[in-house]
C-alpha cells in the first residue's frame, strides 16, 4: 500500500510545489492538501480541503483520511507577507493544533516532515562560521518570525519526545533563491540598487528552490528522522551576489541601519524586513554535513542558486513583462497530452 500524505499550506508556494512533486511519485496513493485559500498550482490528483488550522477540524481531517505522512509547509518565514500577530497565529498556534491532531490517540500519522528555516540561528557577531544543528544561538531572537520559529521547534521537540513511534523530520532551509520564488532578498536583487550595509560584506548562503522541493520529497519518501540544515555548498560574500546579478549596492549606514532602511523602504526603494538586517551585517552559514550523511545532496551550490535566480529573471525581462511567469501551466493542454485517446503513447500496454 502506498503512502497517504497530507500537505499543510497547499495554498503557499511550497505547499503547492510539494503536492505537485508528490503527485508524480508512484509510492504515494493519496495526496491531501489543506489550506485557507485555493492552491495556486494546477494539481491533478490532490484532494483539496479548504480549512484553517483550528484543532477540531484538523483532528477530524487527520482521523477521517487516515494519513500516514504529514508535510508541514505553511510556516511563515517572511514577515513582509503578514503582520507579527498573524505570524504567531499561523506558525505557533497552527503548528500546535496540527501536532495535537497528529498526536491524538489512535492517530495514523507515522511521519512528520516540517519545513523550518535557518532563521532560528539568527545572525550575530558571536556566530560560528558554520552552524551545526545542535548549536544554540547566543543572542535572543529579535524578530517575530525568528521568535515564532523557535517556539515552533520547541513544540516539535516536545511532540517528538511524546510520540516516540512517529518519525519526525525538521528541515531548516537557508534563504531560498530560484527562478520562481519571491522573497524579500529576491525582490531586492531584482532591482538595480540592492541594499548593503556600508563597511560590511557578509558571507551568505542560499539554497535553490528545486533543491528545497527535492529535499522535502526525499525526506518524506525515506522517513529519516532528525534535524537537518539544508543549504547549497559554500558561502559567498554579499558583494559577489550583487556582482553575479549585475547590481550596484545601495549603501545603508552601519549605525542607524534600521532607521534609514525604514525611510528607504517607505519610499519603495528597498524591501527591508527585520530578518535581513542582521543577515546583511553578519551573514549566516550552516553546516550541511549531517544532510549529506543522510544521502541527500543539493544540486546547486550557493553561487549556483544565485545564478539560477538571475538567469530566469534575465529571460523574463528579455521576454518583457516583469511579473509574468516564464512558463504557465497550461492545464487543458497538459490534460490533452496525458489523457486524450488521440495521443499515441510509446509504452501503451
Amino acid at each position, binding site marked *: 500500500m502506498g503512502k497517504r500524505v497530507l500537505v499543510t499550506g497547499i495554498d503557499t508556494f511550497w505547499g503547492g510545489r510539494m503536492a505537485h512533486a508528490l503527485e508524480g511519485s508512484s509510492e504515494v496513493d493519496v495526496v491531501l492538501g489543506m489550506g485557507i485559500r485555493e492552491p495556486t498550482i*494546477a494539481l491533478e*490528483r490532490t*484532494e483539496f480541503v479548504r480549512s484553517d488550522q483550528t484543532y477540531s477540524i484538523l483532528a477530524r481531517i487527520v482521523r477521517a483520511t487516515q494519513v500516514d505522512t504529514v508535510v508541514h509547509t505553511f510556516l511563515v518565514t517572511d514577515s513582509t507577507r503578514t503582520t507579527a500577530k498573524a505570524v504567531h497565529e499561523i506558525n505557533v498556534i497552527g503548528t500546535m493544533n496540527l501536532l495535537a491532531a497528529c498526536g491524538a490517540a489512535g492517530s495514523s500519522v507515522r511521519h512528520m516532515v516540517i519545513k523550518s528555516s535557518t532563521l532560528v540561528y539568527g545572525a550575530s557577531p558571536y556566530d560560528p562560521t558554520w552552524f551545526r544543528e545542535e548549536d544554540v544561538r547566543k543572542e535572543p531572537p529579535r524578530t517575530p518570525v525568528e521568535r515564532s520559529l523557535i517556539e515552533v521547534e520547541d513544540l516539535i521537540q516536545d511532540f517528538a519526545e511524546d510520540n516516540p513511534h512517529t518519525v519526525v523530520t525538521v528541515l531548516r532551509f537557508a534563504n531560498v533563491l530560484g527562478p520562481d520564488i519571491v522573497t524579500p532578498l529576491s525582490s531586492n536583487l531584482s532591482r538595480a540598487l540592492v541594499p548593503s550595509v556600508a563597511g560590511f560584506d557578509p558571507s551568505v548562503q542560499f539554497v*535553490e528552490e528545486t533543491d528545497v522541493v527535492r529535499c522535502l520529497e526525499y525526506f518524506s519518501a525515506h522517513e529519516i528522522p532528525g534535524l537537518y540544515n539544508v543549504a547549497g555548498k559554500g558561502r559567498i560574500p554579499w558583494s559577489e551576489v550583487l556582482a553575479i546579478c549585475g547590481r550596484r549596492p545601495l549603501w545603508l549606514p552601519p549605525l542607524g541601519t534600521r532607521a534609514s532602511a525604514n525611510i528607504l523602504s517607505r519610499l519603495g526603494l528597498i524591501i527591508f524586513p527585520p530578518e535581513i538586517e542582521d543577515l546583511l551585517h553578519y551573514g549566516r552559514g550552516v553546516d550541511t554535513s549531517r544532510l549529506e550523511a543522510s544521502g541527500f545532496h543539493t544540486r546547486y551550490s550557493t553561487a*549556483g542558486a544565485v545564478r539560477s535566480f538571475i538567469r530566469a529573471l534575465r529571460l523574463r525581462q528579455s521576454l518583457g513583462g516583469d511579473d509574468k511567469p516564464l512558463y504557465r501551466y497550461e492545464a487543458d493542454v497538459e490534460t490533452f497530452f496525458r489523457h486524450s485517446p488521440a495521443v499515441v503513447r510509446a509504452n*501503451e500496454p
Partner: protein
Amino acid sequence: MGQRRSPLDALTRPPLDALTRPPLDALTRPPLDALTRPPQDALTRPPQDALAGTPTPAPRDSGSTERYHGLMTPNRHVAGLAEHRSSLVPLRPPGPDAAEDRSDERLSDVDEWGRSEHMRELVRRYGDPMYRYWFRVEWQGLEKIPLAGGALLVSNHAAAIPSDAPVIMHGIEKELGRPVYGLADYFFRQVPAIGTLWSRLGGVTAHPDNALRLLRDQGQLALVFPEGAKGPSKSVRERYRLRRFGRGGFVEIAMRAGVPVVPLAVVGAEESMPVLFQIPALARALGVPYWPVTINQLVLGPVLGTVIHFPAKFRIRVLDPIYFDVPPGHERYSKSRVMDEAETIRQLIQETLYEMLRDRRSVWFG
C-alpha cells in the same frame, strides 16, 4: 553553460517533459480530479466520510475510463481554469540541466572563511617593505612549523594595535607559502570596514567550531593568542610578562582536532606600540574592549601616533611542536590535564621570551 539553454528551449521543455513522464502511471491515476470537481465538493466530502466512519480509501482505478470521456467534453474545466490562470505559479519540472547545476563558478576568490588570496597577495606585496625594512623580522626555527596538515600556532600578544598577528601571518605565508588563519575576538566583526578587511586577510572568529573545522577537517594553520585582549591592553611596565592563558580552550581544541600546538615567542611587538595607561570609561562608552593611550601618541601626535608603530626589531622563535598523547575527537578532556598543558606552554613561551631578552642588545637593532 549559458549557451546550452536558449529561451526557446526553456519554453518547449516542460510540455515535452510532461509527455515523457511514466505514461502508465498517468493513465491509472484519477486524472484531474481535483480540477474538474468544484471546490465545494472537496470541502464537503471528507467530513461526510468522516461522519459516516468510512476511513478506507476509495479504490484508485475505479471508473477511470468514464473520467477520460468526461474530460474530453471540454467546457467543464476549461472555463473554470481561465480565471485561475493569472495566479498560477509556473511549474518547471527539473529538466535535463542537472549537470550544469553542479558548477560552482565564482566571481571572487573569497573562501568560506571570508579570506581572499587576492587581497592577501596585495597586502603581501605592499606590506613586505614594512615587514622587511621597518620591523626587520627575523625567524628562528621556522622549519619547525609543519609544511602540511593542521597545527595550532600559539603566541604571546602585545602592542595597542597588535603588530604581531600580521607579522606572523605575513612571515609564514611568505616563507612557507602556507595560508594562516588568525583566530580573533568576536568584537572585530562588529567594526565596520575593519571587520570585513580582517576577515578578507584571513581573520576568523575564535569559535571552537571554527578552530576545529580549520585544524581537523581542512588541515590548515591557525594562529591564536590565548591571552586575548589582556595581552595588548597591558601597560608598558608589564611588558613581556604573559597574562593568564584563557581557560586553556586552545589546548582542548588541539586535542580534539588531533593536531600539534606550535608555540611562538615574539620579541619586538611590545615596543612597537607600548601602552601607557587605559581609559576604561571611554572604552565602555564606545563599546570597545580597551582604549589605551600609547607612547606613540605622545611622540607622534594623536593622529599619526594611533596608526604608526615604532620600528622595533622583531625576533620570532618557533618552539618544538607539542603533540598531546590523547585520542582525538572527544567532546571533553580532563580539565586538569588541559590546564596543566596550557600552563606548561605558557611557561615555555615565558622562559623563551626571557632568554631572548637576555640576548637582545638593543630594542631597535636587536
